[in-house]
């Protein structure tokens, strides 16, 4: 049975490689709250669609299966760092298997409003070890492009304060123990940004100056996307494809049936 799965995975990888520059890409938009990445993600998605690409969007903590469970616990403030991490990892895995991978193997462009690095930055800022986090999230499917929207903690804090009071976990009050959500947010977001900046170096993010005018950022993103379009497929993603073939065989079969029928 395992041999069959490996064979299926090998075929999927071969198909992706054959598509070359016409394959679907996974493009992640990362950055702290208030960095404007959602605005840019929407502009970019619309532009991609206008260019004729078939686009799928996936958002952080949005699976129909696990989001309600996380939401209820956040409202009750009943989860600690590790439970927060494990539940978000489950949500991520479910979306990866049911939304992201099926779209990519169909050749769609997948635009992720936050991806793996959100978990790494936030959970590391909550004091969890990066080594454990990388295991929790493995096998990893690496994005083709990561746009990192860089802002200072002060800008992030000001932008958030202008629109809303940060929620308990968003403000990191579970780890700072600071009663004032704004004060807690400022302290917590500094830690998150520090982690993001370390990740940006390790994983070679493309940094966008998120304090620049909105349209300038959008133009820069288009240009960077076109320059990155011909990147080779990261071969280490084969492990994640094999895992997907094993963990979600029904979805893989559905996909094979749709290809066979088309």
């Amino acid at each position, binding site marked *: 049975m*395992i041999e069959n*799965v490996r064979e299926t995975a090998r075929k999927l990888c071969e198909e992706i490689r054959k598509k070359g520059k016409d394959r679907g890409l996974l493009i992640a938009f990362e950055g702290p709250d208030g960095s404007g990445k959602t605005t840019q993600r929407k502009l970019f998605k619309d532009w991609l669609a206008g260019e004729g690409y078939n686009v799928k969007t996936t958002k952080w903590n949005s699976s*129909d*299966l*696990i989001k*309600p*469970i996380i939401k*209820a616990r956040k409202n009750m403030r009943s*989860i*600690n760092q*590790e*439970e927060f991490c*494990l*539940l978000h*990892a*489950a949500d991520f*895995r*479910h979306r990866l*298997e*049911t939304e992201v991978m099926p779209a990519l193997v169909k050749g769609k462009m997948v635009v992720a409003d936050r991806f793996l690095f959100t978990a790494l930055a936030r959970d590391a800022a909550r004091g*969890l*070890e990066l080594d*454990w986090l990388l*295991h*929790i999230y*493995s096998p990893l499917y690496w994005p083709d492009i990561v746009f990192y929207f860089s802002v200072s903690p002060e800008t992030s804090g000001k932008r958030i304060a202008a629109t809303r009071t940060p929620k308990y976990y968003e403000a990191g009050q579970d780890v700072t123990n600071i009663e004032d959500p704004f004060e807690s947010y400022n302290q917590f977001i500094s830690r998150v940004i520090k982690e993001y900046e370390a990740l940006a170096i390790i994983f070679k993010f493309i940094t966008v100056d998120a304090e620049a005018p909105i349209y300038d950022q959008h133009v820069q993103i288009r240009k960077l996307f076109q320059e990155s379009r011909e990147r080779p497929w990261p071969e280490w993603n084969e492990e994640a494809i094999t*895992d997907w073939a*094993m*963990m*979600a065989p029904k*979805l893989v079969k559905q996909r094979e049936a749709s290809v066979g029928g088309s």
Partner: protein
Amino acid sequence: MAALKVSTSGRLLSLDIVEGHDAVSSAKKLLKSRSITGGISTWDASSIFFEMNNLEVDDKPSPRTLVLLYAADLFFRLRWEIVPALDEGKCVVAAPYIETAYAFGAVSGLPKQWLTEVFRFAPAPSESFRANGDSSAKLGVATTGFVEFCSSILGQDLRPKFVEYFDDLERRGACRSI
């Protein structure tokens, strides 16, 4: 991440079970056989699985997702039930504990190394036990226990495979039957 620190005065007994409805009775039997009083911690104390079972969704969770959810629930049990009792010097029966996740991992093809890493936080039990269920009994509903839940998700009765895994564990001296 290191395992959660626990007081050495308490005793953690792991009891991995195949029939979810056996959890409490088997745990009581174990405590009685050793003439000790203690607490019992059972699956889904956090009610993650109960809540998930009521959701109508298009795609079911994969084995890897189920293990992550099991880990979240186990962390909750450790934080609220197991560790506080151990710190008070009490005996706690965790029914089920990590071998159930390892068994499910083995059944569904998850790498042992990944499972070991995920459960790095779980302190090693003082002693490990398994309870032999009645395999001729009808499979319980999904919310009866983790084995039943996974069986329901994967669409097959996984109990014989869990029994096989625990038999092997017992043969290797890693646990005892009660």
